[in-house]
């Protein structure tokens, strides 16, 4: 780190040396070295599965390293549990919020460390302390609001407040921006700068490089379980950083020439879906996807995307509206008949809807295609055909596995996803419903998945793509719609839209129709 000389000799708040952790089946940490200087924002970047989370779990006392040492403020530590880490001043803000919705901010913050006053609880002191912390770090959190009423960004600030309340001096933020829209990200970074200014140290885990470059003071790159580089933001571009992360040139989501035709494949008119508790979750939803066209749906998670996908696949009943496939009304068709008619489905949660985890690869090849060759012959399963076709998918889609007889649970998420993509692309589908097709897969697999979607699009496949990755949406869509509270509120041309514009529309801030 040549040009960091302006800052006095590094006094590390956290120093990890030679950390090695062996694990069954996943990339282990081997010889990880990270030095986090006090009062800085230190970013740890790497692909999914590179070993960032494992490293953070080790630092937070959730797992113990097989080798290596951890020093906090110069002291050698040996954390047995997160409680030890907390005692040493380390706090973790998890990617998934751990808040009770029906509690107030105050109650959530004190949960687990309730201030006792005799038999009762001393909320007064806690409220003072929370207001104090909130003001000091500019978090702007009202202790008496119900968490249920808070937006995602506010909830995250409550999480941060929670760890500060417990006296953390070193904050670990695990992919904090994954759930935020661009505007919220800016707010978060503002908060982080204030925390830093107050002398706190922040360890920031991410794979979004623009963000890392804008907020971090130092960056450590993790690849395949080991630290491959330490850089400072001024010295590298996002692209160089990405290439360090992947170890090679980087794929870009983009569509080449338009393949959109005039043939409407999937038409949705005035779709209405009501949840089991009677709430309207989708309303007045209409769109058409033509053969060879990708329609991207952007939106903050929980605005009806999951319901839309399930309604299209016949998993969730409609309260109104019409869905037609290649001109034929499919409202009355069940899921199997829709699949038979050529609808392919990449579910959002592959473990819940896409796979039989304890079944073998070839059995998972059959799943969802129980009525089609080469999996079946009449009412019988064609084991030979299914196995042979699984071998084909494994080869064509580069599924990393020692064989097709192993349980799919033993593969990594990216390889599981590749098998799902290969399966769903089989049998010449006419419409693909893809929910987060590249979620949780590494960059190499991501490029391959994009390529397969591009290829299928050229073959006149109509694709509905839902994604939280705005770059993916912009790069891979022919048209973009924004879903907000169960309605399509805006349409954009992906060639001209920026992530910021999309972000505004997703939160309902910029009402462009």
């Amino acid at each position, binding site marked *: 780190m040549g040009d960091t000389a302006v800052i006095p000799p590094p006094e590390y708040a956290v120093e990890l040396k030679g950390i090695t952790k062996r694990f069954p089946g996943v990339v282990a940490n081997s010889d990880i070295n990270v030095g986090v200087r006090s009062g800085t924002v230190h970013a740890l970047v790497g692909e999914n599965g590179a070993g960032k989370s494992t490293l953070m779990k080790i630092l937070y006392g959730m797992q113990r390293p097989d080798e290596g040492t951890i020093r906090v403020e110069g002291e050698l530590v040996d954390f047995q549990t997160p409680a030890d880490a907390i005692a040493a001043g380390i706090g973790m803000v998890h990617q998934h919020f751990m808040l009770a919705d029906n509690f107030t901010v105050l109650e959530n913050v004190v949960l687990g460390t309730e201030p006792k006053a005799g038999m009762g609880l001393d909320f007064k002191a806690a409220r003072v302390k929370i207001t104090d912390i909130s003001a000091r770090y500019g978090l702007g959190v009202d202790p008496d609001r119900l968490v249920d009423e808070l937006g995602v960004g506010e909830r995250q600030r409550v999480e941060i407040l929670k760890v500060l309340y417990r006296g953390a001096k070193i904050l670990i933020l695990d992919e904090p921006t994954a759930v935020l829209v661009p505007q919220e990200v800016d707010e978060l970074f503002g908060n982080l700068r204030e925390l830093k200014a107050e002398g706190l140290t922040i360890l920031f885990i991410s794979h979004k490089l623009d963000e890392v470059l804008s907020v971090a003071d130092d960056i450590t790159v993790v690849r*395949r379980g080991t630290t491959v580089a330490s850089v400072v933001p001024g010295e590298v571009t996002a692209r160089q950083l990405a290439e360090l992360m992947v170890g090679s040139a980087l794929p870009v989501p983009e569509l080449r020439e338009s393949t959109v035709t005039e043939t409407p494949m999937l038409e949705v008119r005035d779709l209405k879906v009501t949840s089991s508790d009677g709430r309207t979750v989708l309303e007045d939803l209409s769109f058409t996807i033509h053969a060879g066209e990708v329609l991207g749906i952007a939106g903050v998670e929980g605005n009806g995307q999951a319901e839309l996908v399930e309604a299209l696949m016949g998993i969730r009943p409609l309260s109104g509206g019409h869905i037609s496939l290649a001109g034929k009304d499919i409202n009355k068709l069940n899921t199997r008949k829709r699949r038979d008619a050529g609808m392919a489905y990449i579910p959002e949660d592959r473990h819940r809807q896409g796979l039989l985890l304890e079944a073998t690869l070839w059995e998972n090849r059959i*799943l969802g295609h129980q009525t089609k060759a080469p999996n079946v012959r009449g009412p019988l399963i064609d084991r030979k055909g299914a196995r042979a076709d699984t071998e084909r998918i494994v080869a064509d889609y580069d599924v990393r596995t020692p064989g097709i007889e192993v349980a799919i649970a033993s593969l990594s998420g990216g390889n599981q996803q590749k098998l799902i993509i290969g399966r769903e692309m089989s049998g010449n589908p006419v419409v693909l419903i893809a929910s987060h097709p590249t979620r949780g897969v590494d960059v*190499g697999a991501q490029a391959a998945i994009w390529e397969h979607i591009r290829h299928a699009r050229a073959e006149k496949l109509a694709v509905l793509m839902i994604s939280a990755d705005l770059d993916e949406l912009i790069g891979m869509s022919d048209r973009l719609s924004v879903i907000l509270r169960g309605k399509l509120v805006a349409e954009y041309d992906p060639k001209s839209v920026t992530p910021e514009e999309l972000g505004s529309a997703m939160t309902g801030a910029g009402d462009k129709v």
Partner: protein
Amino acid sequence: MKKFSLRSAGLGLAAPVGALIFALLLCALILVITGHSPVEVVDQMVKSVQRPRTVVNSLNSATTYYLSAVAVAIGFKMRLFNIGVDGQYRLAAMMAAAVGGASFMGSLPSFLRILMTIVVAMLVGAVWAGIAGFLKVTRGVSEVISTIMLNAVATAVVAYLLNPARLAVSVAGSNNIGTAPITEGGQVPGFEYPGSSSKIFGLIFLAVLVGFLYWFMLNRTRFGFDLKATGLSESAAVASGVNVKKMIVASMLLSGAAAGLVGMPQLLGASHSYALDFPSGLGFTGIAIALLGRNHPVGMAFAALLWGFLDQASNVLDISGVPKEIVVIMQGVIVLSVVIAYELVRRYRLRLEQREVGTALGTTTTPAEVSA
């Protein structure tokens, strides 16, 4: 791939064998504590195996146990707990006995009579189990609750029908009552076994056939795939196009039909009528055997044989002054230890496989490949 399958076969056996050894040791301990010699008991049991009568009775018990286990296993594969096999087979056996013993059957050819009796039993069993399936899909009633209740209802229905005013006649020479005896043309003859006065049930072949069909259905048919998929992950099955409600009803009907067969070997091979002394409780034994045999067609066959033998051995123990309840303890301990052992092995196997996949890939992939 050979390595995987060999290991998995070994692991598959590890659980039941380990659990059996553990159960035997525990029983030996109990025997020692209660002042009996385990060696003596083992000696007695080994001797009894060699007796032809024990062999025949063990095989016959195993036949009915096996059918019962298959009925339970069909439900288990779907994560449905059909506790009602007991009621289903008793009601089915009684109705089948009434049909089989009815006077109009006398004129029909033997094959047709037997077939009709068996079909009636399957239908009655299916209907009785189907009620639980129907309640589950239309009203969301847990099949556990409804099948338990239906057991009680079946008991009452059988008691009501088994009355001289309705389906029953007095059994000559006793104060027992039962359905009209099935005459010779409607019976299934057994096999002689040298040295034993009782015969091996002819319907032992029915059990073998049912076992084969069960295996075939699960592993070779689309229906079986849907059934297994639903059991492994209902949400994934739904997304794959399985109509879960239909599958629930279908599997309950199948389970009930198999349950209807449970009483047939006894009815057509030995009792020839459904009387008050017709064996009961076989449905519950089936649950234990399905657990012990891991719902596997061959595994359950071994479990049924073991169970049948232990039952017979308990009689021998009584004679030699060892309380026969030791066998019940042994059976209980076996089931408990097997269930625990399976879970342990299952987890170990998954971890092992993950590790193997990890190492297999770790040695074959280079960074260049990963980023390709």
